[in-house]
């Protein structure tokens, strides 16, 4: 007996269901939405180019970022030195690449680590409530009543300057926002039926909140990680520019820009600070585009 057209349709749906193509459907919608966002794709491409360039820095440039060469001091950009050389004859292009490694590492690293801290505390505190939540909330309030840069400067003055200290400070000052985000999501998810079902199965608190609830809170967290990466890179650049960030002997984007505090350099040697500034701006812009794209594609309420 020939199947009716409705039967065929049902068969097709069952087939797709069985081959699990329905579950991947949702993910691919997010990706296709992201791909459709021209700015986000553009951002992702430039982001990858800069990231790869800094990772493969030794292959791209024959110079040593630290080697002082007084014979080729303050040279304007040329074929040998793409971005010219600085006050002590170091190749600026090389320094931008190697500086990018450190700057991106600081930005991304602190964003991810502070997110981990924030999520770990926020998920548990948000789900469990009680005194843990009260204490964590108070602590985050204390951190958040400081303007961020002031708190960072204050901590720098206490701990002294080093790469490790700076990242630690970023994590200490940055976890609060993530904690609040994770906590708010948890509070709204806590009342959902599936959580109550899981609880009635007798699953442990850890399993419920980290394994079952966290994935549902992940998309705003991803967006937040992207945006705070951008923010940390900017803060690092600002601090190093002031001479209060990473010690000057490590090239970072901010440290390279540091020379522009000298008005002579500013006026006469534009290549020492101009290209770096543009690279920072473009990189942060791309990260922001990616973050915005992620938000648009994952959050249905943010259709702009």
């Amino acid at each position, binding site marked *: 007996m020939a199947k009716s057209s409705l039967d065929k349709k049902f068969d097709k749906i069952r087939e797709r269901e069985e081959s699990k193509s329905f579950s991947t459907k949702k993910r691919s919608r997010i990706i296709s939405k992201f791909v459709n966002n021209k700015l986000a794709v553009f951002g992702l491409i430039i982001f990858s180019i800069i990231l790869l360039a800094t990772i493969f820095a030794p292959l791209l440039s024959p110079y040593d970022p630290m080697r002082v060469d007084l014979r080729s001091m303050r040279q304007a950009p040329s074929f040998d030195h793409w971005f010219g050389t600085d006050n002590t004859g170091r190749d600026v292009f090389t320094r931008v690449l190697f500086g990018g490694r450190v700057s991106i590492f600081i930005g991304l690293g602190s964003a991810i680590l502070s997110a981990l801290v924030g999520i770990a505390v926020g998920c548990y505190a948000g789900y469990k409530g009680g005194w843990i939540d009260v204490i964590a909330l108070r602590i985050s309030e204390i951190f958040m009543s400081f303007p961020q*840069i002031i708190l960072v400067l204050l901590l720098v003055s206490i701990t002294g300057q080093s790469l490790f200290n700076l990242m630690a400070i970023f994590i200490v000052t940055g976890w609060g926002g993530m904690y609040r985000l994770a906590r708010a999501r948890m509070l709204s998810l806590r009342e959902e039926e599936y959580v109550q079902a899981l609880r009635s199965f007798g699953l442990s608190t850890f399993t419920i909140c980290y394994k079952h609830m966290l994935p549902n809170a992940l998309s705003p967290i991803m967006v937040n990680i992207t945006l705070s990466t*951008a923010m940390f890179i900017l803060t690092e650049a600002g601090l190093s520019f002031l001479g209060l960030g990473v010690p000057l002997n490590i090239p970072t984007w901010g440290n390279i*820009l540091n020379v522009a505090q000298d008005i002579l350099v500013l006026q006469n040697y534009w290549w020492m600070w101009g290209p770096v500034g543009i690279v920072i701006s473009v990189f942060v812009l791309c990260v922001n585009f990616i973050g915005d794209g992620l938000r648009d594609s994952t959050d249905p309420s943010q259709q702009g």
Partner: protein
Amino acid sequence: MLLVISFLVYLGLELAPGDAVSHMISPELASTITAEQLNAMREAYGLNQSFLTRYWLWLTSMIQGDMGYSMAGGVAISEIMAKTIPATLELSIVALIFSTIIGCSLGVISALKRGSGTDNSLTVAGMAGVSIPEFFFGLVAILLFAIELRWLPVGGRLLPHYETVWDRIPNIVLPSMVLALMMTAGAMRYARSSMLDVLSREFITTARSKGMPEWRINILHGFRVALTPVVVLIGFRLPLLIGGSTIIEQVYQWPGIGSMFIRSVRASDYPLVMTISLMYVFVVLTASLVIDILTALIDPRVRLGKE
């Protein structure tokens, strides 16, 4: 809250390496000075008392309005504050006014022309505004307007008694405009999304169906409601403003509280670092309170306290 923070700040500075005395002695002097002399100096500054005693002394005198003395130069902190705060306020207020006005109007325009070329380019420009480091932007502005075109001074601020108000304007234009432009981006994005949100509500459709002219709908009905989140945002942007002005003050050698703070951090001038950061916290906490009250005044749906 303020009390807890002040204690933590004091504790943190206590744990910091080196005290003020060790910073006052030059390296050459350090080899000749004896431990007794060092101790005498510590005693003179009251550094040999226990931590809690000093905290208590500092706290009580602070409440009485005596903020103590800066360790570098022994100038009274209240005097330093009195000198630097007006400069910072001047800069911040100008920047805040400009960024709010420009940001809100651009945001509303881009919401009204949603999806158009104007909207897209404004959105991209807004993103760029958030992404460019403010000091880099400031440097480019110095190069362009102060060094190449020679329209405006490179930096600094004339003292109030020094010249008339008009002579002081050129000095403030660059730093405040740079600061304002950086902040415009944020205001614009929020104004846009809040305006879009309002425009999709039912009462806008009602107004339109009554045959009301489009501009009246937008201004009287849309903008007024969209304003609330923007006002809240001004409060949220205050920390941003403080952070931005700290760096901009340094770039333009503006003698405000921000550059003072950076100088005191560099010199580990703990009393000054502490007082300034506490003042910032105080400002932020007060501002959030004021914002809460203002929101309740503008938006009748928000009630203060419990029903």
